[in-house]
């Protein structure tokens, strides 16, 4: 199935992908080619920031797939993001080799500090990039599969399911805070040096990661579009709107939910794996229940069940967060809360619904327009 058929009728998504393509071409040029003295120069700091936003956008798309189309309000999606991030972080830790503070050839610093003599079994293999990349997808996928299998088979829905996902991410946070878990405790994993042999601090590597994030977002978006435009996507919406009815016409509702939920968790894992090398740290704070809730707010602000709305919401809210926490650090949470209230009250379909609202409003205002509408 081609890109054209998947994107047919999705004007917002087409525009989003076009903008993404332009940004992916222009930003590297402005960073690498344009001299630093020029006002057009984009700093490496900004490139990394943009790359981070793109991974958030991919995460938001994953949430919109299960919330917008399947009706599962997951308040624990940051857990899958975090697990993907930890898998990548473990690879980056192993890449440090003997350049750590303690200079141990194999063990990461925090293990030397804890007087561990050898690498735990679950750290084996993470010196290989392909293995870590695979784990960044498989670990969140497996967790989502097991969790989803138990929850959906028992027909846990609605607010109960949301609370369980919160508990899931909270439990992971508490577990990862423990030093004995072997993931660096509350300091997490940090002090990374290089990825695939490229220095993480160099501009070119930063650009590479930025482009990888843009590519992952585009591919993830297309994959989600493919699912929602298939018959399975229509079954998902059917489950969202009338679950019992869907069961009575013969669909295994639990299996459909399980498949899409697991896929979404894998996407979140990919986003996490791209996020960690760009921000340079992963710690248990990523599993904080608040993160998962904030993430749902991005999707609500952008507009549910549109996919591209999730991208807009994630980027706008995070830009706002970066700006506010720099300019008025105390005001950010109030601004986020106000934004959420305003959107819920006045823009039930989020920013993505704004275009339609403006069009309806203008049509109702101009009598010529409404006459032209009525004429054919």
């Amino acid at each position, binding site marked *: 199935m081609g890109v054209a058929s998947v994107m047919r009728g999705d004007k917002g998504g087409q525009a989003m992908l076009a903008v993404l393509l332009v940004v992916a071409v222009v930003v590297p040029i402005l960073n690498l080619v344009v001299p630093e003295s020029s006002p057009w120069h984009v700093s490496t700091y900004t490139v990394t920031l943009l790359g981070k936003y793109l991974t958030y956008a991919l995460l938001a798309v994953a949430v919109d797939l299960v919330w917008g189309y399947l009706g599962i309000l997951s308040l624990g999606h940051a857990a899958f993001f975090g697990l993907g991030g930890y898998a990548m972080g473990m690879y980056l830790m192993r890449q440090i080799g003997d350049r750590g503070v303690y200079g141990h050839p194999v063990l990461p610093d925090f293990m030397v500090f804890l007087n561990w003599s050898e690498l735990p079994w679950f750290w084996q293999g993470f010196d290989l990039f392909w293995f870590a990349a695979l784990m960044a997808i498989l670990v969140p996928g497996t967790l989502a599969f097991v969790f989803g299998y138990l929850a959906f088979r028992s027909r846990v829905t609605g607010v109960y399911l949301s609370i369980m996902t919160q508990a899931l991410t909270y439990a992971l946070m508490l577990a990862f805070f423990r030093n004995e878990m072997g993931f660096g405790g509350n300091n997490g994993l940090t002090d990374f040096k290089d990825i695939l042999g490229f220095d993480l601090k160099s501009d070119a590597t930063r650009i590479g990661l930025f482009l990888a994030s843009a590519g992952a977002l585009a591919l993830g978006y297309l994959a989600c579009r493919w699912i929602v435009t*298939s*018959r*399975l996507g*229509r079954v998902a919406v059917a489950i969202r709107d009338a679950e019992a*009815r*869907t069961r009575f*016409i*013969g669909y295994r509702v639990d299996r459909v939910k399980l498949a899409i939920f697991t896929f979404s968790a894998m996407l979140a894992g990919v986003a996490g794996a791209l996020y960690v090398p760009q921000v340079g740290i992963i710690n248990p704070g990523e599993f904080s229940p608040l993160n998962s809730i904030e993430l749902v707010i991005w999707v609500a602000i952008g507009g549910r069940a549109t996919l591209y709305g999730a991208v807009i919401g994630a980027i706008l809210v995070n830009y706002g967060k970066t700006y506010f926490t720099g300019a008025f650090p105390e005001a950010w949470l109030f601004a986020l809360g106000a934004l959420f209230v305003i959107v819920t009250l006045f823009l039930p379909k989020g920013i993505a619904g704004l275009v339609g609202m403006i069009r309806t409003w203008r049509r109702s205002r101009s009598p010529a327009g409404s006459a032209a509408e009525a004429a054919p």
Partner: protein
Amino acid sequence: MKPVEQLRQSMRKDRQWSFMYSMLDLDLDVSQGVILYLEDVSVSFDGFKAINNLNFYVNAGELRCVIGPNGAGKTTMMDIITGKTRPDTGSAYFGRTIDLLRLSEPEIAALGVGRKFQKPTVFESHSVFENLELAMAGDKRVFPTLFARLSGEQRDRIHEVLGIIGLQEQTQREAGALSHGQKQWLEIGMLLMQDPHLLLVDEPVAGMTHQEMDRTAELLLSLEGKHSVVVVEHDMDFVRSIAKRVTVLHQGSVLAEGSMDEVQNDPRVVEVYLGE
């Protein structure tokens, strides 16, 4: 039970193992002319006997109406047939061979038992066409559904059903925008898309206008012979307009059964309906 006895039980030739059940032949056998057998079924909720020793048979191709006062167990009976509620005792067979009590809701649906709910439930944000497409008989597992494409034949079938339920004009309309009556017909159309052997229709004319009722009566009568249909309804005029055989349920068991006239003149029925 003694071990020897246990062994003998498990060696019985007619023994059906539950793990082999999916391998059993699930073909519908209506060679006796009966499509549904409910025998000695009882179910109670918190001590209240919703169904009490119920015996109920439906012939293949028959249009049967079930009436009864509120709380007579009509909806519970439908729940048992479709696998939503498991009875405490008794048996439920679909045709001679298929034990409904061992199957899940989607499995029962896949075998050809379609159910229309009391309140019309259609997929509101899908078009009428998509509603019928989703309901269509076929492989409904996850991956086949992901790769499913409509064939020309299937498209024709959808248009045929659109004709039967009289919604050709509304093909591309969002189902949520349909009138109450149209939603009911769409839901019946969704059942037809599953090529069901047995249709369970719960209060199809509740909240309908008289024209809509007449239209629904025609629709249900046109299904007779091709499908077995069980209609649960309160509206007596409507029942009289379609029914050949009527079953009266009262306090969870069958009170009377026969033609509309016989049933209406039965003193016990009169007492239940008028005596209170």
